[in-house]
C-alpha cells in the first residue's frame, strides 16, 4: 500500500519536474521480453525510464541497481525493492558467483530488464564505454529483444551530489531493436550498442 502510494508520488513528481515524455522511434511499446539499455547520468534515470514505460509494462520491467549503494540504508533498500522491484547486482568481485546471476534468474522468469551498461553515472555528455554485461546477456538469451534508449537532459534535473531537483523537460527515446550478430566479437558488439544509444540523441 505504502509502496504503491510512493510509486504514484514518484510518477507524479517526475511528470511535474520533467514532463517524462516517451518517444518510441524504432519500436512500439510491446509486451515482449526486452532488455532496455540506456545512458546513465543521474539517479533520476531509473525513475525516468520507468515512468516513460506504459503502465502495463512497468510491472514486468525491472531495473538493475548496485547492491552496495542501494541497500546502504533501510529507506534506499525499501525504495528499490518494494517500489521499483529492482534486481540487485554487486559491483565488487569478491564473491565467487557470477555477478550477472540475478539477471539470469530474472530473464528466465520472463521479466524485462532495464540496464545501464556504463556501470556508473557519467559526468560528461558522452556515455562511457559499455561493460561486458550486455554482451553476456545477449549471448545467453538470444530471444530477448535488445532495445537501446537515450535519456535526454536528466543530468540537469539532479546532478551527482545534489539533493533538490529542478524542473527541466526530459525525454526518453527508444530506438530500433538490435541483435547480437552471429559470431560477433564482444568489443564490436558493445561499440555498436553504444553507438545505437548515442545515435538516438539526435533523432
Amino acid at each position, binding site marked *: 500500500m505504502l509502496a504503491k502510494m510512493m510509486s504514484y508520488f514518484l510518477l507524479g513528481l517526475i511528470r511535474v519536474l520533467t514532463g517524462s515524455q516517451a518517444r518510441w522511434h524504432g519500436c512500439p511499446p510491446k509486451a515482449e521480453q526486452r532488455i532496455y539499455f540506456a545512458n546513465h547520468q543521474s539517479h533520476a534515470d531509473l525513475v525516468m525510464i520507468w515512468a516513460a514505460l506504459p503502465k502495463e509494462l512497468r510491472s514486468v520491467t525491472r531495473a538493475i541497481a548496485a547492491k552496495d549503494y542501494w541497500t546502504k540504508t533501510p529507506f534506499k533498500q525499501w525504495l528499490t525493492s518494494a517500489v521499483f522491484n529492482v534486481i540487485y547486482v554487486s559491483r565488487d568481485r569478491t564473491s565467487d558467483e557470477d555477478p550477472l546471476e540475478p539477471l539470469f534468474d530474472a530473464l528466465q522468469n520472463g521479466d524485462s530488464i532495464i540496464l545501464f551498461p556504463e556501470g556508473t553515472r557519467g559526468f560528461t555528455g558522452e556515455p562511457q564505454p559499455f561493460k561486458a554485461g550486455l554482451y553476456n546477456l545477449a549471448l545467453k538469451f538470444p530471444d530477448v529483444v535488445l532495445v537501446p534508449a537515450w535519456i535526454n537532459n536528466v*543530468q540537469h534535473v539532479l546532478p551527482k551530489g545534489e539533493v*533538490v531537483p529542478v524542473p527541466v523537460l526530459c525525454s526518453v527515446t527508444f530506438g530500433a531493436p538490435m541483435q547480437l550478430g552471429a559470431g560477433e566479437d564482444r568489443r564490436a558488439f558493445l561499440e555498436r550498442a553504444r553507438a545505437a544509444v548515442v545515435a538516438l540523441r539526435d533523432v
Partner: protein
Amino acid sequence: MFQMYYYLKNLSPTQQVGMLFVTIFGLLLLASVGAFLLSVREHADEARADFWRKELKSLDAMLRTSWLMVLVFWIGWAAGDWVALTLFAIVSFFALREFLTLSPTRLGDHRSLVLAFFVVLPAQYALVGGGHFDMFTVFIPVYVFLALPLASALANDPLRFLERSAKLQWGIMVCIYGMSHVPAILMLKFPGYEGRSAFMVFFLVAVVQVCMVTQHIAAQRMRRKPIAPAISQSFNWDSWGLGVLVGSLFGALLAGITPWVPGTAFAAAFIACSAGGLGHFVMKALKRDRGIPNWGAEGQSVTGAGGLLDRVDALCFAAPVFFHTTRWYFGV
C-alpha cells in the same frame, strides 16, 4: 436593446461576472458542437476530406486551449484570489520549465535554478497576493538580480558566466515577473469598481488574444515583406498594426465591463496590444537564437515541451506594461 442594457447594468457585480462566463461557455459550447458536426460530415472526394481534417485539427487545438483558459479563469474567479494566484503560478512554473530547457544551463547553475523555481516563484506570487505593490514590482529586478548570480558564482564555474546569468534572469523576468502581473490586476482597487477586478484580467487577456490572432491571420493573408526575415518570416508592421488596431477596437467594445469610457479602454488596450505583439516578436528572436521555430514544435521537439510559452509570451510582455501604466495614470 436598451432594456437589455439596463437589465445587465443593474445586476450585481457577481451576477455580471457570472453572466460573462455563461456567455463565454455558451459560445465555446456552440463552437465545439459545430466542430464536432463538421468532423462527422461525409466528403465526396478524398482531397477535400483531407483538407477538412487538417483544418479541424488546428481548430480543435485552438478550442481546447480556449476551454482550458476559460476554465482556469472560471475556477480562479469562483474560488477566490488565492486560487487564481496559484493557477497563474502553475502556468509560470511550466513556462519557466520550458524556457530553461531550451536554454541549457550548466551544472554550476543548479542552486540558482532551485532558488528560481522554489523560492523566487512562490515569493513573487505571495507578494502579489499580499498586495505589496511596491515590493513585487522591484523584487525580481533588484533583489533576485543580485541573489541568483551570486548563487551561480559560488558554484565556482566562470565558463560563459554572463550568458548563463542573463538567460536565467530573462527566463525569470518573462515567465515569473511578466506572468505574475496578470493576477496582480485582480488586486488593483478602482474606485466604484469593487468586486469586478476579474473583468480587468479578462479584458487584458481578451484584447491581447484578439490582437495576436488578428496579427497571425493578417500576416498569413497579406503576405507583406517581413521586416526581419532572419528572425520571423511573418512579422511586418502592417499586420502588427492591424492586430493592434483590431485588439484596441475590441477593447473599446468591452469598455462596459471596465471602469473606463470607451476612449480610455481603447488607449489601455492599445498599450497592452502593442506591448504584446512586440514581445511575441522578441521571443521569436530568442527562439531563433536557440534554433527552434517554436517552444516545442511537434515532431522535432527533443524535450516534449508543450509549447505553452508560445501561447502566453505576448501576455507576459503585455501584463507588466498594462499594469504599470494603469496604476501610474489612474493612481490606483
